[in-house]
């Protein structure tokens, strides 16, 4: 038995005009969880696709159990027991869990050649039970949360007897609680003998799970280390290639007068009696589990949906926010969670995206003013350091972090007082994260009041002045950030029982 079950040596992959992988190495021990890290664009995805047979490398050698293999298509890799679980689950939402698990290798009756539903459901249920999943194999896939869909993907990998499982940013879309569940399953898989390649941007994931860590940067191999030998500073400097001075620069900002007061805001079935205040130059973090009603509260503040009860006061005056147009007129801006679907028109160039919310402000008699438009977008793109050849580049060609900067630019194009950020650093790499924190800090310094929804404890604790914790549609705790411990927040988000006698009013 060789030391490594999977080895890749001197892998180079060329695309027209780009070296996507440049002499990269990687090896995987049996029964280990191997963290793979790197900024967006470092070549992780190309690398994974090389292992799974989607791409064939131009140079280099792949060895499985010490023997040289060539995967010319994904099926080859599957047959050798390699399975990948992607960040965005690729499933058939209208089919059942069992059908999704066995798609492509359905259980067939020996004689009638029809699908053996009984057998398929039994085996699927077995796999789900193995993973301690408490849902049925007959559930419609689309009815499951992203976390559960991932469990189905894992079951699918197991159904194909996968020995090597690749997980591509599986925790990116999960809440705290679900992440914990995924940790447990991943460890269980390892203990059952599978070897796992775990890709993640979250340092917590790596510390919690990984035995060893390999880091890529700019399509090149940087090194492999035991996870215990790497501290945060080291990981970041290997990934970015230069030390980060400080993730969360503490700014000395004077917090000004109250600009927003939310009083007993309620929307039946989503949230109830939410109250908090926001001051000038203040950063209020709203945290809690996914589904606790955080986004819903903020969408009501922005007029995407309307609250049924409660009051909103802006600068002391009662405001009715019926739609985003009204919110913007009141000086409230919103950075949505899904920048690709809600934040940007991906097919459009950067400049057009930036000026979309302000077209009317700079038009005369409804006519576009292209010169002024270009000036504004140039100025804002520069101010936010959007990395692109010029403002005529298509938004879809940008990395996640730069796309997010463009969405920030859209907010700054208008004259706003309050900015709501929904998971502003979701799915961006660590370098871009630091840049976004820098932007948020600057905005607070300039006098914006900022509400930030976030699931990531380090940024909640590192950036905010005040923390609103939500659970089951209620505010379960309010903290002043200074002196608050992570455990207290988690306790309020997951354990604390609020308004248990009243319920949420979903049924009533």
């Amino acid at each position: 038995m060789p030391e490594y079950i999977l080895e890749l040596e001197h892998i180079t992959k060329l695309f027209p005009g780009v070296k996507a992988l440049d002499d990269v190495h990687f090896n995987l021990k049996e029964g280990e969880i191997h963290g793979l890290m790197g900024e967006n664009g470092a070549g992780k995805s190309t690398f994974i696709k090389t292992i799974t047979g989607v791409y064939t490398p131009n140079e280099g050698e792949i060895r499985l159990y010490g023997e040289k293999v060539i995967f010319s298509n994904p099926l080859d890799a599957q047959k050798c027991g390699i399975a990948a679980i992607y960040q965005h689950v690729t499933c058939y939402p209208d089919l059942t869990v069992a059908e999704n698990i066995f798609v492509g290798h359905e259980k067939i009756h020996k004689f009638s050649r029809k699908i053996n539903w009984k057998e398929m459901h039994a085996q699927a249920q077995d796999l789900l039970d193995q993973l301690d999943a408490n849902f049925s194999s007959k559930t419609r896939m689309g009815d499951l949360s992203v976390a559960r869909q991932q469990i189905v993907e894992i079951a699918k990998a197991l159904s194909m007897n996968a020995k090597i499982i690749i997980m591509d940013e599986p925790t990116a879309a999960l809440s705290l609680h679900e992440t914990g569940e995924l940790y447990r399953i991943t460890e269980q898989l390892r203990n059952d003998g599978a070897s796992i390649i775990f890709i993640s941007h979250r340092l917590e994931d790596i510390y919690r799970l990984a035995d060893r860590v390999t880091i890529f940067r700019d399509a090149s191999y940087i090194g492999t280390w035991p996870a215990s030998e790497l501290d945060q500073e080291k990981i970041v400097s290997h990934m970015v290639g230069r030390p980060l001075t400080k993730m969360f620069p503490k700014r000395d900002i004077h917090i000004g007068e109250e600009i927003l007061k939310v009083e007993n805001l309620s929307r039946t079935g989503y949230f109830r009696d939410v109250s908090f205040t926001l001051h000038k130059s203040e950063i209020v973090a709203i945290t809690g589990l996914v589904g606790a009603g955080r986004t819903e509260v903020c969408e009501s503040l922005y007029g995407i949906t309307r609250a049924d009860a409660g009051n909103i006061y802006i600068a002391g005056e009662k405001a009715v926010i019926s739609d985003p147009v009204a919110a913007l007129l009141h000086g409230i801006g919103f950075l949505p969670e899904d920048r690709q679907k809600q934040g940007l028109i991906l097919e459009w160039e950067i400049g057009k995206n930036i000026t979309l919310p302000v077209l009317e402000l700079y038009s005369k008699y409804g006519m576009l003013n292209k010169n002024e438009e270009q000036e504004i977008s140039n100025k804002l793109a520069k101010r936010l350091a959007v990395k692109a050849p010029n403002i005529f580049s298509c938004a879809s060609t940008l990395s996640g972090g730069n796309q997010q900067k463009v969405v920030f630019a859209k907010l700054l194009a208008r004259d706003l007082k309050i900015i709501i950020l929904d998971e502003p650093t979701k799915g961006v790499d660590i370098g871009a994260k630091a840049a976004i924190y820098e932007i948020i800090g600057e905005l607070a310094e300039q006098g914006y009041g900022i509400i930030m929804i976030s699931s990531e404890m380090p940024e909640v604790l590192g950036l905010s002045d005040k923390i609103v914790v939500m659970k089951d549609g209620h505010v379960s705790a309010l903290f002043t950030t200074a002196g608050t411990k992570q455990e207290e927040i988690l306790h309020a988000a997951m354990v604390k029982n609020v308004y248990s006698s009243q319920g949420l009013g979903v049924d009533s």
Partner: protein
Amino acid sequence: MIADKKSVANLDTQRVFSLKEFFLQWEWVLVGLLVVVIIINSFISPYFLSFKTFLNTPMTFLDKSFIVFPMILVIILGQIDISVASTTALSAVIMAVSYNAGVPMALSMALCLLTGTVCGAINGLLLIKFKELSAVIVTLSTMIIYRGIAYIILGDQASGGFPEWFSFFGWSTVLGIPFITIIFVVSAVLFGILLHKTVLGRTIYGMGFNKTACTYSGIKVDKVIFIVFTLAGLMSAITAIFLTSRMGSTRPNVAMGYELEVITMVALGGVSTSGGIGRIGGPILAVFIIGFLSYGMGLANIQAPVVLVAIGLLLIFSVLLLKFRRKQF
């Protein structure tokens, strides 16, 4: 702060004009097609290749082109309106019936325009109020309803007897140029400006690609939908006026199938049916390609069904070519 200054620096660059991209535009393919159609026509009939033909032939097919303009907006918006031909019929019927009931002709024409506008506005309102309904279903329903109302009002008969001056719209020329062509050019310029130079036009493109992002950006998306569908109704009524003027009378079954001809022209003109992509010039060229093609085949005594087959083939061939070309970028 990590700043990669060198990659941010050249943001000030101006848009570069690329000759290659200029000549890769779909409109050049259409210009080529138009030339081919004209050459074929001149082989069929030696009289075709004359200035007079070029000036007068469009009178025979420009009536429906007025619906092409708002349909460009509707399709760029990622929607569809198949009720336009029924709107034309209902507007024409209202005009004829009200005139024959003693209303002055000028007022009848105003009623015609009003009918079309209201029909379009109803489509728009339905789409805004019932977001779960698709534009296909809404306008399919109103297509049947508007046509049905036209039948109820007039019954299966013709109504005409318009004053002499009303034939001016369909038949006369100003300084040698057909009046319909003048109105066509004016509409083309107005819609071209609307689409390419105004905030509304930009917004229509944006909504075609991503309506959600537009909502989050503070765009009044409902207002845009309402305006565009109302415009479609108004322009359908203008078609009704020119069509009725040319024929001298109207029936509830006029303009049958116009909606599909119009959508064909818009699609052939390079407007993407999934929304967001298209320009004013392409569909205008397509109007003439299809118009001259039908005219030429008519000259050659080719039967109407064959003409339809030819247009269908032309459409599928060019849309495939269009898709192939878009992949190049």
